[in-house]
């Protein structure tokens, strides 16, 4: 089939099989707070603000709840790592956000307002500190992937990917309407020693 009819459906399907829901606590009570990414083995990456305690429950794409333990948290970079043995979710492939230019197509997978594995599409704006005038309580000087893609509560911790479905960042928040994601290399730094 032509690209015009399939568009991102192939890469999206592949990535959706690698995105999980994250719920608070051991039993996963309450609605899934955000999304998580099967990063490697039994390690799942999400946003630090999604997992507030030391335990979290992974909800696999098949809908299975698997208890997990928060093994690392970087509040400054807003990244947390959850180990959930037996979750058995295939890992994502990561990509290099610095290799993309402004205007490159990107897409996000997450659970905006609880809608499971929703795909939103847009383009990259920049991989840099935020422009002056975009307020972010001092965190604007960190390097963020900035994208013109729609994110909502429930996307946090989910992937932002290039057209091939390679994960270039972890969706974190929206500032002045612009989607912000933590660059994959920064996530790897948080993971250092765990994998």
């Amino acid at each position: 089939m032509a690209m015009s009819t399939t568009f991102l459906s192939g890469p999206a399907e592949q990535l959706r099989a690698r995105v999980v829901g994250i719920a608070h606590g051991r039993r996963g009570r309450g609605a899934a707070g955000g999304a998580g990414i099967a990063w490697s083995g039994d390690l799942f990456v999400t946003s630090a603000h999604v997992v507030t305690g030391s335990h979290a429950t992974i909800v696999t794409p098949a809908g299975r709840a698997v208890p997990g333990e928060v093994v690392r948290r970087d509040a400054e970079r807003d990244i947390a790592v959850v180990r959930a043995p037996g979750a058995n979710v295939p890992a994502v492939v990561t990509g290099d956000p610095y290799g993309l230019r402004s205007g490159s197509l990107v897409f996000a997978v997450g659970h905006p307002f609880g809608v499971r594995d929703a795909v939103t599409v847009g383009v990259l704006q920049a991989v840099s500190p935020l422009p002056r005038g975009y307020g972010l309580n001092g965190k604007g000087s960190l390097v963020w992937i900035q994208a013109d893609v729609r994110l909502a509560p429930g996307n946090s911790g989910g992937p932002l990917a290039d057209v091939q479905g390679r994960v270039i960042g972890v969706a974190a928040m929206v500032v002045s309407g612009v989607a912000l994601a933590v660059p994959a290399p920064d996530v790897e730094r948080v993971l250092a020693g765990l994998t």
Partner: protein
Amino acid sequence: MSDDPTTLATLSEQLADAVATAGAALVAVHARPRLPSTGVHWKDGVVVTTEATVRRDDDITVTLPDGRRIPATLAGRDGGTDLAVLRIASGSLPVAHLGDPATLRPGHLVLALARLDEGGPRAAFGAVSATGGKWRCWKGGEIDRWLQSDLDIYPGFGGGPLVDATGRIHGVNSGGLSRALATTIPVATVNRVMTQLLERGYVARGWIGTAMQPVQLDPATKQRLKRAGGLLLLSVEPDAPASRAGLLVGDVVVAIDGKSVDGFDQLLDVLGGDVVGKKLRLEVARAGQLVSIDVVIDERPRRGR
């Protein structure tokens, strides 16, 4: 897998190429507190941005694609079309490649671009939503073409260009002209307003010096004059084209240049564009009779700014 990742990657590359091409002609305009806006290097030494983002007349600078910050001077502004024009040193950066907005159809891929700082150009992605002919915006200016898109005009994107998938610039995006969808001031309007701002620093608007209201004629007059209604003169300013031509309060203008009048649109149409000095032939119902009066359009006096 049924998709073709190669073509999709090609599209992605093409969009990035379009951003790079058009982005080479963009500057960040520092003419307000905090966040800069975007300007398009429309022709050599001339930068166009939106009027609403130019909050001061002096101490304006622009950041070039290479990161240098250079001074700019305000050539003029036109609130009616939300455009402002700045002069910068000649040869500072490449000139915009302009497209023909008439070729854009709803559904075409487009990008909104911005330059906010020393970093590269920024992009937002979407499609043309609606196109059409000439219209008059709420700020009073005449826009040569209706061109709206579903692009998000992020903070600082105002004054930036609407760009097609090949990198051609079709106009300047205005955050202030409409709320529901992003509105683009098309190339023709930018060219027209820019020319006037460079020549005289403002856009001259046609004026005859009257206040009017649409009215229906009474049945007897309607029958006799074969006209339904027109514009009733409520006041005539002294030393204005209308008073010089002998128009009186109470006159009803029923036709302009042979075309019947039933509201303001016809009048605004003949007063729009480059019309100062042009003669209008008004057909006026006065005391039950039709009289013909010629009025020479003058330039609307500029109050304050």
